[in-house]
């Protein structure tokens, strides 16, 4: 690398309008654009006092320290009836900001709690700290690109998100996926479901104070992730599914690692969960906390383990079968109590079911191609499609509209944790501060998917 000195004066080439003005030449062609730039410049000078965003660091400087440092969180006037009702404090009540930088929020979730003493009176979840505008990016990228844009959404189990997107696109392009690819998809996704539920168990125990379960679950997860890295090439954001199949066929390294993991999978899960299932402290903290009854669960649109813990046996793999699930024999564990303990036990049953599914996949894995024949440039005919998949946290849906060009016209992502978290303002009031963590982590929200 040739060593460089920093050039003293800006670039030497002849600049049409003087070298000093760094910003690029203002667009003269459209008056509208110019006026917009002018308003933008004006707005940037001094944002209106009353509407300054709370994330603006200057807010701390010019406000003297004192009682109002505890003033209600939004510095802007109240806009909706719910916000008015929440941000008026009764006597003896205080606002407590749990998050966005807090050890127990799964990602960057901010819960504004209205506490009286240790008892939670009301909750207002504030989202958007992890919002990357994935839907906007997907509208500007071609169909292959969308798949790896969708991975970081539910980063703990990203294959499911890919599967939903791929399902929708295959419907748009009427692509026939070869059976071996379908079985590989089921195999890898169920593996990821096991690792995601193991992590759930670890984080639930961590939020309740136990140190050991989280480390045992990470050992378990690391094995599974190493195995998937041998197959797909990535540890977390796999980018493995393609429209019409999968990226690579099963190789020896993946199968051998899967083999010795399967030999001790059941015993290891029993041992890890044994630490929590009968532990009196854990059970006392999880039982009867955050009870979500059947009716409210349905009205909130909660899906996945949280819904099945409230007695509704809705599992997309059975309710609306896709891929090769009809040929696989597994049952959908359901419980009736609907409290945190039920949600935890449901997920442990699902891990056993997944291990059964993986076993069946391995036994009757057909051979043949893993990828359907597709043109290099994908331009599906205009139309709309909805692909839904049963992720570890609930139903993952993708609603894709194509307008015939090589970029999707609208790419809507439905994340289960989004509605699972919407239950929190209904479940938390009345519980103690310590229970907020138990309930929130039993719902297992992943903020990547919520904030999109």
């Amino acid at each position, binding site marked *: 690398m040739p060593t460089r000195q920093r050039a003293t004066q800006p670039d030497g080439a002849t600049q049409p309008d003087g070298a000093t003005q760094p910003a690029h030449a203002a667009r003269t062609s459209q008056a509208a654009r110019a006026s917009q730039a002018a308003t933008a410049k004006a707005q940037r000078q001094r944002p209106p006092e009353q509407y300054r965003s709370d994330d603006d660091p200057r807010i701390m400087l010019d406000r003297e320290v004192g009682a109002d440092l505890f003033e209600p969180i939004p510095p802007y006037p109240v806009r909706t009836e719910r916000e008015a009702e929440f941000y008026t404090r009764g006597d003896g009540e205080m606002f407590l900001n749990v998050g966005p930088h807090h050890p127990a929020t799964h990602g960057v979730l901010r819960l504004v709690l209205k506490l009286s003493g240790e008892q939670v009176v009301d909750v207002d979840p504030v989202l958007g700290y992890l919002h990357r505008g994935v839907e906007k990016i997907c509208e500007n990228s071609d169909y292959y690109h969308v798949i790896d844009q969708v991975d970081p959404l539910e980063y703990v189990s990203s294959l499911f998100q890919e599967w939903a997107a791929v399902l929708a696109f295959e419907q748009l392009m009427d692509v026939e996926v070869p059976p071996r690819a379908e079985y590989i998809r089921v195999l890898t996704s169920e593996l990821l479901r096991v690792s995601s539920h193991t992590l759930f168990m670890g984080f639930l125990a961590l939020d309740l104070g136990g140190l*050991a379960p989280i480390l045992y679950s990470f050992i378990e997860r690391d094995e599974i992730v190493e195995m998937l890295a041998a197959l797909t090439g990535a540890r977390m954001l796999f980018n493995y599914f393609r429209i019409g199949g999968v990226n690579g066929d099963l190789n020896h390294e993946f199968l051998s690692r899967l083999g010795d993991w399967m030999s001790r999978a059941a015993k290891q899960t029993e041992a890890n969960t044994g630490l929590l299932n009968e532990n009196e402290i854990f059970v006392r903290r999880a039982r009867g906390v955050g009870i979500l009854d059947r009716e409210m669960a349905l009205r909130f649109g909660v899906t996945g383990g949280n819904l099945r813990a409230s007695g509704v046996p809705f599992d997309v793999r059975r309710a609306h079968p896709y891929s090769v699930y009809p040929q696989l024999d597994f049952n959908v564990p359901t419980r009736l109590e609907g409290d945190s303990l039920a949600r935890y036990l449901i997920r442990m049953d699902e891990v056993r079911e997944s291990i059964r599914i993986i076993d069946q996949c391995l036994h009757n894995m057909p051979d043949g191609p893993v990828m359907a024949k597709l043109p290099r440039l994908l331009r599906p005919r205009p139309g709309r499609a909805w692909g839904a998949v049963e992720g570890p946290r609930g139903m993952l849906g993708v609603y894709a509209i194509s307008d015939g060009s090589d970029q999707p016209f609208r790419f809507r992502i439905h994340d289960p944790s989004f509605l699972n978290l919407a239950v929190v303002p209904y479940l938390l009031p009345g519980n103690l501060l310590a229970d907020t963590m138990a309930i929130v982590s039993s719902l297992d929200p992943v903020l990547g998917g919520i904030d999109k």
Partner: protein
Amino acid sequence: MSFIPGLGIAKGMALTLRRFFQPKATIQYPETTPDIAVRFRGRLQLLYDEFGNLKCETCFQCAQACPVECIDMGGHDTKNRFYTHWGPAETYGERREESALRRSGRPVPDQAFVHFEPIDLVAVEQILERRDYDPGEMLPILEEVQAAYGYLPVAAIKHISHVTGASYALVYGTATCYGHLSFERRARTIGVCRCTSCLLAGSGRIATAIGEGLGTKLDGAPVGGVALQQLPAHLPGAASPLVTLDGKPQTDVTERSAAVWSRSLARKTVA
């Protein structure tokens, strides 16, 4: 939950005590490295072909496609003319691609800019005006610049990327993607044969006339896109004195007409 109150806790404690003595799962990284799968895509390395030379020829397609601009690469241009570098400035502290820097609002020192000769940018400005500074129509812009200058001067590419705001990699990537766009000036070469028969027929005087017309001497640097070179050997069956333009023999090139002809050639390529 078992009926004896403390049993669950005791079982949990027994498990952790048992695991106290079991073999550990930690890999002492620097000493023992974990066996990473063959298909692992996380390795950041440049590929070499079996002859040992680098497969990458800095065509910038990957830097252009990378959504988060995380690819940092640099290297000499395929024709080894100048050094191109694309990548996040902060990591290397030196600034390469000024439109990214401009986005971050800092002044724009760009060393790579110095190496090539500045050109008259008026033509480029008019083309961009017609195309409404729109990076979406990068290909037509580049074709028109090629038509205007005979080739794609680096200053023009820098200016386009500077003005339209499109990243340098996008412009450069589009240029390298298509065959008909070239970074090299189609230098016109006038060949003069100096074998004995041609010298007798006056090719020496023609050569000097052309030299004056162009302002160079024999085998000197090309001026205005036209170079004067000496032909190695006389083409069989060609009339002497032999004068070729880009290899094609020219007829009736006399001493007087040579100067005018070569000057007009030079002006044409520049216009």
